[in-house]
């Protein structure tokens, strides 16, 4: 219906599993997505970040073919998305929910059959998964009898049962206790090791650093930042260094660096300094080592949390002025 208009772009032989090109989605009165383009490399964990209401869920729904974009294209391996592509996707929505009165196993089999498995295949695979997630004893119980954590496990299992190539997890850790969150994290890594591609949206920046290879940050309906996690974090470096010295004072001047913070701990002195932007790292090290007895020297790489806050706040400031 909203197929690609004109010739598809010649994608260079990258390992792009999924690509969205200038996807636009407008609802009456507001734009949910404004020319959003993302590239998800094959066999990677891709983080979809952004504040609430930025348009992440809309993008996920478009990839899932739940809604159609008003303009733009979604490509799987460079080919515009087809109706059959839904069988290649496993989806865990942010708002969880299953039939409360239906039995856990029966329900999982039903959802797996809708994703193209036969009843027999589905039952065999799901029993195995129920075993692995330690909820096989609940196979014949109504969902409402299960604890919330167990319900979440059932839901997670239904997303992966048909062994899709692409998994989309919208806030996969919400509702899990730390133990189960760890379980899910390991599952995600296991899926990656099996060659799957995973897109996950989260507000938990620590898990982004831990799991994601690449990210895209969506804010106010636009993709404002994308790339590899390590690359983005170093892109946001503030030239701040941590030094551990033997002396109480740090010999330097403002043309080299400014001291932001100092502290003493176990007989050693710690300084946080901001390097002068005109000086490169190598020069900074040689000069600082010459005048001080430096025990350790470390550049502060901003966390994804800092990156997130800076990017989103920066956009807000731009809006103000």
């Amino acid at each position: 219906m909203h197929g690609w208009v004109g010739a598809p772009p010649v994608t260079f032989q990258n390992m792009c599993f999924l690509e969205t090109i200038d996807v636009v989605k407008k609802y009456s009165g507001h734009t949910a997505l404004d020319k959003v383009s993302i590239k998800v490399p094959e066999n990677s964990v891709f983080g979809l970040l952004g504040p609430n209401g930025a348009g992440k869920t809309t993008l996920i729904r478009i990839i899932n073919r739940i809604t159609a974009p008003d303009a733009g294209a979604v490509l799987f391996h460079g080919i515009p998305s087809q109706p059959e592509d839904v069988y290649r996707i496993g989806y865990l929505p942010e708002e969880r929910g299953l039939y409360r009165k239906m039995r856990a196993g029966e329900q999982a089999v039903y959802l797996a059959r809708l994703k193209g498995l036969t009843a027999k295949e589905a039952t065999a695979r799901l029993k195995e998964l129920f075993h692995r997630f330690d909820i096989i004893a609940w196979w014949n119980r109504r969902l409402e009898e299960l604890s919330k954590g167990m319900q979440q496990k059932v839901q997670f299992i239904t997303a992966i049962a048909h062994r899709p190539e692409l998994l989309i997890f919208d806030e996969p850790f919400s509702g899990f206790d730390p133990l189960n969150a760890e379980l899910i994290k390991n599952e995600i890594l296991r899926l990656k090791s099996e060659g799957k591609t995973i897109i996950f949206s989260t507000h938990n920046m620590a898990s982004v650093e831990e799991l994601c290879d690449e990210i895209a940050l969506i804010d106010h309906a636009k993709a404002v930042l994308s790339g590899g996690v390590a690359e983005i974090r170093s892109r946001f470096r503030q030239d701040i260094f941590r030094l551990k010295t033997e002396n109480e004072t740090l010999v330097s001047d403002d043309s080299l660096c400014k001291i932001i913070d100092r502290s003493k701990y176990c007989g050693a002195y710690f300084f946080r300094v901001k390097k002068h932007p005109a000086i490169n790292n190598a020069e900074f090290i040689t000069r600082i080592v010459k005048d001080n007895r430096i025990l350790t020297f470390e550049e502060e790489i901003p966390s994804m949390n800092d990156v997130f806050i800076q990017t989103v706040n920066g956009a807000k400031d731009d809006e103000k002025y």
Partner: protein
Amino acid sequence: MKNIRPKMWIIIEREYMTRVRKKSFIVMTILMPLLFIGLSVGTVFLARIGEGKERIIQVIDHTGEYFAVLKNDGQYRFTEDAVESPYACLVITGDLLENPKAVSLLSEYHIAAEAENLINSQLNDYLRNKKLSSYNIANIREIIRDSRININLKGEKFGSADASSSKQAISSTETASAVGMIFTFLIYLFIMIYGNMVLHGVMEEKTNRIVEIIISSVKPFDLMIGKLIGIGLVGITQFGVWVTFVALLSTSATIPGNSLFPAGIAGSLADVGLMRLCLFFVLFFVGGYMIYASFFAAIGAVINSAEDSQQYITPITILIVFAFFAGSYGAQNPDGPFAFWASLIPFTSPIVMMIRLPFGVPWPELLLSVVLLFATVIATVRLAAKIYLTGVLMYGKKPTWGELARWLRY
């Protein structure tokens, strides 16, 4: 595309199986016929309560002529003695042949019609005989009895009789309208019950958010249609069970000693063409159900909670209830213009046609009604699907009527 249609069957299967296996369905299906029988037996029983108690009517007869005429029956006893608290007081003040108004019945209670009838008929008989005797004509009673010719009028339907068969299909008006009313009520009940089931099914999926997972694998249209068909089949199953139940009972009625279904009723049910009626019931139920259930599906997709539903449901409910009353009204004159038009208009036709069918409806009319009905089914399902599509993923505020109209144009 080859992988897509079978998905609808999986949905139909789930919608059907989860409901048919429910305890409440099984209990309802078994209990309803029993309840129905219980109610009819109970009503007869209740009507007889109190009949055992004797009522005393005190007669104050100034002429002294009429008291002897009044005969006690099982329930009413006449007496000239003063009674503490009589049921009623019959006062006769003069010769009734000269002045028929010289009699009155007084009571503290609302006097039962049967008491009046009893007195009237006894006094009338006596007075008639007295008057006849006063003419002094020999054998007058025999002459009158001779001249009394009884015409027993029986309604017979043109065309319903099969010329080759000697047994004419006699459509007794009373049986026809009784059967018609039962079917009218039944189809009304079924459309309401199963329409509401669709409403709640759609609402459950939406508030549960499971709809998001399902329509990431199935087209929303397939989900909606699958649900409509699945639940409709549950209704047909229930009806089927009841028909089988009645059929078994009425065939066993031919066995002597079965008091539940007198053979006469089984016979007149056959006259009405019960099996034909049941087939049309299913046909019209499917049509009417699809129209109303698709409305309900659209409503379920639009609202976010049961509390919101009233605003949208009320107009639909009014329409169904109106159809039901149109059906009841149509029972008075099943071939009249009102019943005729109401049985053609698709929103009322499934219900009103039920009252007309036992009386026989000409084939062209029936065909036209069915065609109109199913054309409307296609149209309403399409409209409902549009609203459903947009509504089912929309959370937050409920849409205004204007917004709904806009969704229809997407």
